[in-house]
């Protein structure tokens, strides 16, 4: 990534990236600020600083509401469902995609192109168009409102993406690595597990994170294919109600949104280095 860049170009890029950072950060900050406002402050700008942005008195009421208050029996199970559904579907998707992408990048077999184009076509397919038939089918076969009933469509969403990312990644790993392992006495499986898989780890993590986000942020499937016992957070937010009929649940929704954003942020921070690190450096001359 070391390119020679003039100071002017560097400064220009710096300014642009700051603008983009502010642009993307403001809505997030706003959600955090809103989640910290009391019900009174939500309706009264004079209780807030910086023109209705930050509350003068930070209130944790909204968080109490979703964790132990009235909204908790809606939010907590939803959070649990979200975690289970996303972790399981990410895991399955990454494992399947790893094998599939490895085969695609290493072997020549008839229909290889077909697999790649089909998976690309699937990911172009509008999600909303699948929901209604799935809803009918799921109800018939009893998958409606179950956790597998969500995992299966999420796999359909994340697998094509994962296969594409990973096959690009595998293609970057020099063939010689594997041949060297085979000459050293490894079976194909050993060569894959001991050499190729560790080298592909950054790619696998990248794929896992993307797959996780896709599932974590999905609203369409969750809101249509579940009712109670498998509802995830994005869908559950839709059913939040205020403390009374006349209060908008804005604060609670924001608090819940903040809570579900945290795992995503943690994931990125933890794996950031692994994603960026070029693990293959030094394998071959160059």
């Amino acid at each position, binding site marked *: 990534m070391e390119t020679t860049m003039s100071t002017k170009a560097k400064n220009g890029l710096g300014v642009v990236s700051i603008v983009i950072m502010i642009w993307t950060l403001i809505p997030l900050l706003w959600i955090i600020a809103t989640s910290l406002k009391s019900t009174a402050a939500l309706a009264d700008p004079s209780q807030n600083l910086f023109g209705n942005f930050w509350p003068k008195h930070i209130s944790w009421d909204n968080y109490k509401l979703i964790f132990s208050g009235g909204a908790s029996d809606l939010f907590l199970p939803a959070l649990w469902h979200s975690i289970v559904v996303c972790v399981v579907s990410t895991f399955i998707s990454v494992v399947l995609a790893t094998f599939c992408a490895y085969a695609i990048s290493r072997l020549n077999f008839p229909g290889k192109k077909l697999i790649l184009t089909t998976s690309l076509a699937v990911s172009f397919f509008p999600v909303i168009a699948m929901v209604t038939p799935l809803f009918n089918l799921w109800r018939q076969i009893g998958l409606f409102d179950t956790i597998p009933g969500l995992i299966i469509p999420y796999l359909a969403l994340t697998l094509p993406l994962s296969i594409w990312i990973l096959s690009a990644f595998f293609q970057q790993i*020099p063939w*010689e*690595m594997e*041949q*060297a*392992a*085979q*000459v*050293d*006495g*490894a*079976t194909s499986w*050993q060569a894959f597990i*001991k*050499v190729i898989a*560790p*080298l592909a*780890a950054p790619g696998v993590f990248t794929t896992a994170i993307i797959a996780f986000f896709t599932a974590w942020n999905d609203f369409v499937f969750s809101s249509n294919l579940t009712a109670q016992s498998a509802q995830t957070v994005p869908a559950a937010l839709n059913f939040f109600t205020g403390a009374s009929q006349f209060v908008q649940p804005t604060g609670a929704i924001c608090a819940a949104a903040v809570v579900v954003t945290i795992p995503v942020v943690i994931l990125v921070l933890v794996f950031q280095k692994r994603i960026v690190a070029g*693990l*293959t*450096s*030094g*394998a*071959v*001359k*160059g």
Partner: protein
Amino acid sequence: MSSIELKHIVKKYGDGFPAVNDVNLDIKDGEFVILVGPSGCGKSTLLRMIVGLEDITSGELDIDGKRVNDLAPRDRNLAMVFQNYALYPHLTVYENIAFPLRLQKGKHSDAEIDQKVRQASDMLELDEHLQRKPGNLSGGQRQRVAMGRAIVREADAFLFDEPLSNLDAKLRGQMRTEIARMQRRLGITTIYVTHDQTEAMTLGDRVCVLKRGVLQQVASPRELYEQPVNLFVAGFIGSPPMNFLPARVDGNRLKLPFVDVPVDGELAEKVKGKDVVIVGLRPEHLKDSTVETAPEHSVKFNAVVDQTEWLGNEQYAYIPYEADGAVRKQLEDLDRDLDGEGLRTQMIVNLDPRSRVIEGDEARLAFDPAAMHVFDPHTGANLTRDDDKAAQIAAESEKLRKAALARAHKREVEQAEKSA
């Protein structure tokens, strides 16, 4: 320790083009064999067929008399060093070297592995780098790690695929001698692919010259140099390359571009009836007769030098000439086979560095007609090759090889006794 035998090995790709065609080769136990040739001659393909990374289309490959055509690479017990080293970047140097041992489950205890790895790293002077990752090593160090990974296995043979081509010139020289020393010390059968003829000449007990998948000549470096079988081998071996001059046959004389050379006896018999032949003359066989005494029976002539290069220990002079139309095509084809650029035809003379000839001067040159190689322009065959002499050279080289192996072995035993 083992012998490798190739019988009528053929490799055809999907389009039916034979990348390797009917190669027969018998590699003796402990022998250092070089596969050499210009790019695309099939030398790497041949090596990869031996190690099992490439399927053999037809023919038979025996290791120690056992057919291994259908064995997977891991079952052939050969060690290979790749051109780009192919180190495992996620493992330390130590683990890279230990990798083949760890794969042989249950065969080695941890203590054994440790001892073997340390032995290899000691031999290759890698001790201080054992805990580093390949990414932090220099090219030469990576090269040594790749060799360590090959040694530690105690494989039946070593295979090298252009192992030095990624190193700079100085390091290449050092690693070359290092490989030669290691091979003698371990006495292990070695097959080494290169396109660099210096490596081929210095390392090999025997050198196999390949051209477009066909084996041209298998012989000791000296025999290749002194008794090449054809134009291609003569042109490929030697640096600067042999000069090829068109010569008209006129009775008992060969008319070269600069001079007429009398021929007699056997050679005269062979060139009789031919219109033109190609004469090969090594640059060092041409002398500047003003500073060096030319050998007896020398032919003397004058020629205008176009360009000189003084290198300190030697000096090259370039003398352009017009190629005879009758053999120009053959010479051009040959040039292409040798990866040449089809530049002007010129004669290169390796002058004594004391020679004061400079550009534009008329130099007084001389050569011994006995040093000439005469080639049939159509078949490319060497008409002056002396089979008896070639056999003698081969026998001598074989004797030298055995002596070198025995000496290395003796030294090893002495060392072991001393340390015990």
